[in-house]
């Protein structure tokens, strides 16, 4: 069991989400940076789908009420366990009573903490994820919350360190054109410009500021289904990149979609950072 001392700016419980309910208007949700949650779980010998904590911009601290094995992945943060610094991307043995404190990430946005066995909070529609848009799943993590450990293990933790590349200073995200690229004069502004990440970004989407995409069609698009990674473009021409908690349907045209492999990178974009896009093909 762990007891949260301080949740930081925003910490939520996340697993790989709740697929299967899109037709009922329920998004998949789950970890915004799924690669990092999967890695954290593998490092402690968990199934990749076990629930862990997603700490947005660090600041999280907790006390372990029993011995545990943990791992930290994603946005690199200074982390202190029982007064001693611990590293990212490694399994860490924690004695009972120890306190873990995360500082602010030096790069990136979201840090993941996996505990061997996973966090045992009640599932909603097969997932322990907090969906900030639909309100499904556990409430956001608060001081005093206690999380028991589950039994989502698949083997012993037997890797000491997972080498992980540094997050790029200016990520280049690959996109597939469409489905509504024909609503715009050209994708050139998107593919040649740089976009700055706005502070209004969250788990629903990353708001971007940069060269506007010019619309060549007037009128409204009837709402339609949208996938994670969609670059939805409202009338002001500034794209919004949909993350894990995006609405299932949207009413603005999607000019292009970020490739699945680059969505974890997109989830680590922080306000003020710049990002670029490069065209690729789906098939």
């Amino acid at each position, binding site marked *: 069991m762990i007891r949260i001392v301080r949740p930081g700016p925003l910490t939520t419980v996340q697993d790989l989400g709740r697929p299967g309910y899109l037709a009922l208007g*329920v998004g998949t949700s789950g970890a915004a940076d799924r690669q990092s949650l999967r890695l954290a779980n593998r490092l402690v010998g968990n199934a990749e789908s076990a629930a862990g904590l997603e700490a947005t911009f660090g600041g999280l601290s907790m006390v372990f009420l029993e011995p545990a094995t943990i791992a930290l992945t994603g946005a690199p943060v200074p982390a202190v366990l029982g007064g001693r610094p611990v590293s990212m991307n490694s399994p860490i043995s924690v004695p009972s009573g120890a306190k873990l404190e995360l500082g602010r990430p030096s790069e990136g946005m979201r840090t993941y903490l996996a505990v061997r066995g996973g966090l045992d909070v009640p599932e909603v529609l097969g997932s322990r994820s907090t969906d900030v848009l639909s309100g*499904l799943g556990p409430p956001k993590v608060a001081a005093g919350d206690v999380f028991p450990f589950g039994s989502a293990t698949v083997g012993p933790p037997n890797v000491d360190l997972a080498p992980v590349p540094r997050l790029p200073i200016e990520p280049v995200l690959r996109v597939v054109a*469409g489905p509504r690229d024909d609503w715009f004069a050209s994708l050139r502004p998107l593919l040649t410009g740089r976009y700055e990440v706005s502070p209004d970004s969250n788990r629903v989407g990353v708001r971007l500021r940069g060269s506007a995409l010019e619309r060549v069609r007037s009128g409204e698009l009837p*709402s*339609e289904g*949208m*996938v994670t990674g969609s670059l939805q473009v409202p009338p002001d021409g500034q794209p919004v990149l949909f993350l894990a908690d995006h609405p299932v349907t949207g009413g603005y045209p999607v000019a292009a*979609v970020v490739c699945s492999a680059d969505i974890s990178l997109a989830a680590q974009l922080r306000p003020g950072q710049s990002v670029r896009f490069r065209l690729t093909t*789906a*098939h």
Partner: protein
Amino acid sequence: MMRIRPAGETAALVEVDDLAQVTGLHTALRADPPAGVAEFVPAARTILVTYDPAVTSFDRLAAGIERTRIAPADEVSGSLVEIPVRYDGADLAAVADAAGLSQEEVVRRHQSADYRVAFCGFAPGFGYLTGLDPVLRLPRKETPRTRVPAGSVAIAGEFSAVYPTASPGGWHLLGHSELAMWDTDRDPPAALAPGDRVRFVER
């Protein structure tokens, strides 16, 4: 006519001419989905089809969808859901004025229609019901309410709906229902799914 475009590397957006074709195509695809399909998101003119790129490709999936025969309306079947309503909504008088009808006639027309769940969206369990009497079609309110109570039975445009949970909303409120439209402890959690037929019954 069907137009199919990629929506990233894991989904295809299928566009058809109208809502009736969406319902017919959704019925046909659910009955016999092409290999590798994960989920469908029917909407007003489109169905988003998500797929596993390890099993199929956009081109193979698109070819499979193009071969699908859109089910005609009389072949579309779905469960019948009866929704009990008390017609005491805050906008009943305003809707009656706008339609040039008495309140009793608005109620009679709203509950005598056969509705079908075209798609869900906006919030978990929020079903867009087609079949609304054309006389009752009104644009959404100029200023949405900041809070519409859960269970509100409402209309806007060509649709009727029941708000599953309290939320902001711009639809016109005709009444309310005690039927839980959304309950995560129930399987399925939503009272309505795309394709279901719906009748409102005054109580």
